[in-house]
Each structure stands twice: as structure tokens, then as C-alpha cells.
């Protein structure tokens, strides 16, 4: 851990400012109560979070729209979002340093958006509960019985069978957003109790590594041949030339052409298509994918930036 935040003492001086901007409602969750909830104990062991106190986990599972009279995870979820987007961005920027920045942003979104995180929440066995306080009262439950479930108010309400009422506003949310928010909050509580180095490990093990995204599918090129020639010019390489490598049935209805794109003696890419033009374009796309998806062995490779055409 880093030494005490020296210059940040300024913020401490501004405690009245921080107090004015602190928004919290509801009563605290008692550790002695949270510890006895079997769902929370099970979650602790399932995610190997035995060192995270049960009250912090219980709080992470209470969404801002919950009707329970407990503190919620709004602030934790916001902090978790900052943590997740930084670590995901750093992971991919080191792994694929040449990806254009908007593709990188999009890739990070694939890992840290609410729908993506909601899948993790489902995998972790988090169970949603969107009953109103009246519903809980009628089934004879108290607020403590709602702990351990993901507590939120759904924006879709079934008024009567077959008729749904969709509400809007800050008092309701969707299941996806609530599930995603609780994953972010759990990440923030891991940070609060384990510190920066170990939360990075948690994010990498539980959020980034399990997901598999096909990166060749994430990029679309509008002018591949032109982009490739600008790239070659910028990198001081010979201009790219497409050559036909193999063909079959040129005069038939199912012609196949294999084209390669070369810069001097170097083969940059290869593509197959049913016309000469298609093969040439696919070869350029293949070459550009090879360039942008380059993954170096060192971690301090700094890229020059994408090509501007």
C-alpha cells in the first residue's frame, strides 16, 4: 500500500464541502445480523470473499431503488465503475496497444457495461428480489429477511396477467442495471477491504479473464485498401500491392480468387473472395487486422496512434 495521502489533505480541509456532497439514506446494516444470513455466507465462500465482512456484501446487494430501509450501494457502485473501467482499459491497452481508441473504448464497454456485468451476477448466483415493502409485509417478512437478495424496484410491473406497466424515473430500475450495479459495488467493497493490488487481481480473475470476445469481429473497415496504403506510407514501408495467388473457375458461376497484399517482399495479408475485388479487399482487411491486433511481449509498448485518412 502507498503511504498516507499527503497532498490530498486538502480534501480533508474541505470536509464541509465533502459533507455537503455526501448523499446517504437509510440505516446501517449490523454485522451481527448480516453474518447470520445464509445467502451472504454462501456468496462469500462462492467468490472466496471470506475476508470481506458480511455487512459490506449485504450493502452491495441493496440497489438505490430498493424499498428496504437500509443504506444502499449507489456510491459503491459508482466507485466500482471507475475501478472497473480503469483496469479493463489498462489490461487491453497493454495487451493490444495498437487498437484505435474508440475500438478500445468499445471493447472495454463489452466487458464493463451493465448487461455484461449482469451476466457475471447471474453466474455468481445472485438472486433478485423486487417485491414492494407491502408485498414483504403481507408475506410476514421483515427488512432483515430481505438481506442477501439483490433488492431493487423493477420498472416493469405486471398490473394484471398479460398487461405490463413500464415506469420511468429514478425510483425504479431494470433487472439488468440492478444486477450490473451490484457487481460494481462488490468490486468496490473488495477494494475497500483488500486494497488496490488485490482488487486488480479480483477484477482480472472474475471479470476480464472469463469473458471471451472475438476481436476480429469487433472492427469494421470502411476503406481498407486506402487505410493500408496510408499506414504503409506512415510506417515508411513500400506501398502495398495486391497480387493474385490462386484462382479457380474464373468463368464459372462459383469463381474463387485468393489474393495476397504485399509491401516489397513482405506479405502483409491474404484474402479469399468470389471476385478479384472482394479478394483484394479481404486481403487488405486481413493485413489491417494483423496490424491493429498486434500483441507485444513487453508491457511498456507505446503506440503511435491509429491511421487518419
Amino acid at each position, binding site marked *: 500500500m*502507498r503511504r498516507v*495521502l*499527503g*497532498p*490530498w*489533505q*486538502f*480534501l*480533508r480541509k*474541505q*470536509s*464541509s*464541502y*465533502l*459533507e*455537503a*456532497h*455526501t*448523499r*446517504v439514506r437509510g440505516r*446501517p446494516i449490523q454485522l451481527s445480523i448480516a453474518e447470520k444470513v445464509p445467502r451472504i455466507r454462501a456468496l462469500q465462500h462462492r467468490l472466496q470473499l471470506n475476508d470481506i465482512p458480511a455487512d*459490506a456484501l449485504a*450493502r452491495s446487494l441493496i440497489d438505490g431503488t430498493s424499498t428496504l430501509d437500509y*443504506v444502499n450501494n*449507489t*456510491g*459503491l457502485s*459508482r*466507485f466500482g465503475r*471507475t*475501478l472497473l*473501467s*480503469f483496469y479493463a*482499459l*489498462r489490461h487491453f*491497452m*497493454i495487451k493490444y*496497444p495498437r487498437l484505435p*481508441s474508440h475500438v*478500445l*473504448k468499445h471493447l472495454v464497454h463489452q466487458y464493463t457495461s451493465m448487461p455484461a456485468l449482469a451476466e457475471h451476477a447471474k453466474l455468481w448466483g445472485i438472486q433478485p428480489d423486487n417485491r414492494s415493502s407491502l408485498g414483504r409485509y403481507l408475506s410476514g417478512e421483515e427488512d432483515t429477511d430481505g438481506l442477501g437478495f439483490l433488492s431493487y424496484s423493477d420498472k416493469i410491473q405486471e398490473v394484471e396477467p398479460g398487461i405490463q406497466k413500464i415506469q420511468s424515473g429514478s425510483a425504479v430500475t431494470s433487472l439488468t442495471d440492478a444486477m450490473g450495479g451490484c457487481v460494481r459495488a462488490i468490486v*468496490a*467493497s473488495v477494494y*475497500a*477491504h483488500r486494497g*488496490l493490488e488485490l482488487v486488480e487481481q479480483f477484477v482480472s480473475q472474475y471479470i476480464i479473464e472469463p469473458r471471451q470476445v472475438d476481436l476480429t469481429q469487433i472492427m469494421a473497415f470502411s476503406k481498407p485498401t486506402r487505410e493500408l496504403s496510408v499506414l504503409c506510407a*506512415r510506417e515508411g514501408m*513500400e*506501398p502495398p*500491392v495486391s*497480387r493474385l495467388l490462386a484462382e479457380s473457375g474464373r468463368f464459372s458461376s462459383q469463381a474463387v480468387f485468393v489474393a495476397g497484399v504485399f509491401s516489397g517482399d513482405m506479405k502483409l495479408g491474404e484474402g479469399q473472395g468470389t471476385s478479384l475485388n472482394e479478394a483484394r479487399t479481404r486481403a487488405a482487411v486481413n493485413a489491417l487486422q494483423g496490424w491493429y491486433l498486434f500483441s507485444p511481449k513487453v*508491457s*511498456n509498448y*507505446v*503506440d*503511435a*496512434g*491509429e*491511421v*487518419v485518412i
Partner: protein
Amino acid sequence: MAYIQTRHVSSLAAVTAKGLRKLPEQYMRSVAGVMYPGEPTTLAPAKKFLGDFKLSDPLILQCLVHKSFAHGKVPYNEKLAFIGSELLRLEAARAAAQAGNQALPKELTINGQNFDISSNAIELLTSAQVLSKICQNAGLDDTLFYKTPKRDLTSSIRAKTVNAFVGAVLLESGSTAAFRFIDDRLMREHNLFSIAEPLYRDSA
């Protein structure tokens, strides 16, 4: 027979017209009139700004180049600024969580930290206004390479430069060094807080 297609392009220094290729001397020049990659003195303010944190000369130069310069032909700072801004935001949120623990009763904090501060209050610290001021105070203004924008975007260009230095230290020397860089250089040396303080007072 393979052949290589070549085109003959001639440029006229005096004439500028649409579709005519410009001479490098026309567009490889910074707003201050310095020719890319700069004179020996170009990197001096940046090196002073970095202090003990050593970066290679090409990397420092890359931090000073905005994407708009020379149509992206030379290395620019877009992605360095991207990761730098994310790191700064994280660091500000961490600091606020630690410093704001007195604003909450102890049982509402999580391990003695306050995560319930509104994000607008935190993001002010790393806003473009504040960072652009730091860039000006460090004397980096005349060493920046960018194309003069039609609208006034200079504060965002300056802020990106500061973010890029944070990102460059992060990628070159790791996160521990980057946190130390934020602490030592931005906070202590360049007094980020005294710059942000009037803004705080305005919004409080």
C-alpha cells in the same frame, strides 16, 4: 509482370488550394512556429514538469503532439491521454473516499472510507479547466503541437497533454510510479488544489 504504380506530385509553397498537396514545412509547424520534431529547447519545459520521472525523448514528444497535428502522420497522445484521465479519475475518487470519512458516521463508512460523495464533486478535481491551468503554469503551452481549432478547444488540448504525461508514466514505469507522479508533481509541485479551490468554492 509486377509493376509498382507511382504518382508524380508537385507542390507549390506559395499556393494553397483544395486538393493540392501541401509541403511538409507548411503543416509540420506548431502554433508557436516551431518545426516538428522541435528544437533542443522544445522538450525542456516538459522535462522540468516531469521532474524525477524519466521518460524517453520520443515519448515526451508524443505527449506534446495532439491528434489534430499533421493529420496523424506523427505519433500523437490520444490513447495516452485516455488512460491517464481514467487513472486521474480513479485517484481522485480514492482520495475523496479516504478524506471524506468524517462526513459520515462510522457505521455508514466501509472500512473507514466514504463512498457516498457525489461524483460531480470529485470529477471537478480532474476537469479540463484545472488540468489546462496546470499545463499553462508548467510553461508547456508554447511547446504543444496541434492544429489551431476553429472553435476554442485549447483547454481540452492542454488537459489532454497533462493526462498524456500521467498515462505515459503509467505505461512506462507502472502504476506505483504513476500514483507518485500524481502526488508529487500535480499535487505538490503544481498545486492542483489551489487551482481547483476557487472552483470548489463556486460549486459549494
